[in-house]
């Protein structure tokens, strides 16, 4: 077990390196010279050469990658070309905003998914199962950016109950949890929750209906256990896989909230990425992608370790 954990943690190193390489290469798959994005079209050649040397762009690609990686490891994610200040502080505050949104949306989606999936699994093949399953399929099929617009139209434009965009007073300071701030969190969270809710519903339903048809459940019934007694057994058997799916979904929400953040002008990493793309702000683009991907890698690792440690059926050597 300890050997497995060690090996799994060590495996993070090559994966992270490869992920960094992909993020680094993003700039170089772009057509044309990356320097064109950094300077005005009519800049004299000497200035271009100076900028090129400043960013190390005159070095061969492997050397560039090495230098970039060395800086990243030291916490230097480069300087924004547009704002002219280091990327890291902005990235940290944006990550915080995205984290708050992903957790709220995730929690909402997971609770809904577990409840819906549990009910559908217990009453398998009944009408309520069919309805809930149809709702789940609809959930995974919703273009969530459209759902966001619809919610804005209903709750902001027509009912005038909730704000349509932003994160409340103080901009990206989303660590304050009073009603004035939570108001801004409601619509984006619901929008973000729909897809994970659908996915978790389908997973939990499958697990629960499988477990319910197992012999040991029949035995428990035979022993005279009531429904709420059986629930404990079902939950314990369905928990490991469900947790794994939830962990993956949370990781996906962190990296995939760009569309929802754009709709609601939420000041997170998605907005940052969006702005960086259109301003061709390459250091910001690289740094944001890298941080989100690394977060995804680490969360995947955690999910795997947690699942292994709580599920005795998985033996990993």
């Amino acid at each position, binding site marked *: 077990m300890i050997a497995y954990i060690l090996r799994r943690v060590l495996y993070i190193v090559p*994966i992270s390196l*490869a*992920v960094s390489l*992909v*993020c680094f290469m*993003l*700039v170089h*798959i*772009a*057509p044309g010279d990356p320097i064109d994005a950094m300077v005005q079209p009519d800049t004299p050649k000497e200035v271009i050469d100076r900028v090129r040397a400043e960013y190390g762009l005159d070095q061969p690609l492997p050397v560039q990658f090495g230098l970039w990686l060395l800086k990243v490891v030291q916490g230097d994610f480069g300087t924004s070309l547009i704002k002219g200040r280091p990327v890291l502080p902005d990235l940290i505050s944006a990550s915080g905003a995205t984290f708050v949104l992903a957790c709220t949306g995730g929690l909402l989606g997971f609770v809904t998914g577990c409840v819906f999936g549990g009910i559908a699994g217990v009453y398998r093949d009944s009408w309520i199962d069919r309805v809930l399953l149809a709702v789940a*399929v*609809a959930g*995974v*099929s*919703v*273009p*969530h*950016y*459209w*759902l966001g*617009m*619809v919610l*804005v*139209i209903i709750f902001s*434009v*027509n009912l005038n109950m909730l704000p349509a965009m932003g994160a409340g007073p103080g901009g990206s300071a989303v660590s304050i949890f009073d009603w004035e701030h939570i108001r801004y969190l409601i619509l984006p969270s619901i929008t973000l929750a729909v897809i994970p809710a659908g996915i978790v519903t389908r997973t939990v339903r499958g697990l629960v209906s499988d477990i319910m048809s197992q012999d040991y459940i029949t035995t428990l019934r035979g022993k005279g256990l009531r429904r709420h007694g059986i629930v404990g057994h079902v939950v314990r058997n369905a928990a490991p896989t469900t947790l794994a799916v939830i962990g993956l979904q949370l*990781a*996906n929400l*962190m*990296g*995939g909230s*760009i*569309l929802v953040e*754009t709709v609601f002008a939420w000041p997170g990493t998605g907005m940052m*990425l*969006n702005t*960086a*793309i*259109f301003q061709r702000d390459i250091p910001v*683009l690289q740094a944001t*992608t890298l941080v*989100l*991907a690394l977060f*995804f*890698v680490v969360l*995947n690792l955690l999910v795997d370790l947690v699942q292994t440690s709580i599920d005795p059926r998985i033996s990993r050597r």
Partner: protein
Amino acid sequence: MTTTYSSGIAEDAAPPKVAENDDTYWRAVGRRLMRDKVTLFCGAILMLMAALILFAPLVAPYGPTDGSIVRRLKPIGTPGHLLGTDELGRDMLSRLLHGGRYSWFVGITPVAIAFLVGGSIGIIAGFAGGKINMAIMRVTDVFYAFPSVLLAVAVSGSLGAGIANAIMSLTIVFIPPIIRVAESVTTGVRNLDYAEAARATGAGARSIVVVHILPNVLGPIFVYATSLVGVSMIVASGLSFLGLGIKPPDPEWGLMLNTLRSAIYSQPMIATLPGICIFMTSVCFNFVSDGLRTAMDVRA
């Protein structure tokens, strides 16, 4: 005369035996599909939509970019404009019909390419095993380390807007999961007794793959690929919604949704129409994919 007679018997008797074995599975699949009303209904809607957008130039009352600013944001049901007009006075119905061509094309093409490319790579990895498998699967792991939407946005953001770049970035997103599925099904089939027996009787790699592997793995890989079309439609339109993907003035559902955001106060119904189209397409593809999975009895 005798020759004709005997060959007549041969034609009647011998070939159908093989053919019958071959198509009872597909007949059973067809029978199960015929009983599945939800799948049939969704399939019918998809076919209707496909026909409408395929013949958009004939069906649509106006051209996709025709319009006058004077007639902008007319409500649904305006005479001459069944679904109203958009923020530049272009007929919504015509734009939705023409827009479907882009949305469907950008949504389906990446999955189709990924099915061919990822499927081939996965089958090779699964069949070859050993070091080749290891190398292919480790590279796949790297792309798995990115959330799919992030990868699509980052790649197409770096490549720049445009329909080809959007298709390319989505293809990159969908190849790794298809490789994983193809590899795991192929590894499963490779170790089954009949593949083992074929190897023992001296069959070459080529004939094992063609005769024993392909017929048994293509179904599951295909079903998995169809389950990606719904997501692909959403992300493809999402890219255009962000301003990547299709460029104005071409109509595309995601792009239309974005430009109509300015109209949510004046004509909210019209502003949501393109999203309803994306939603409908995606739901129907997902239901059809689920139906296919059940009918083909695929567990993957």
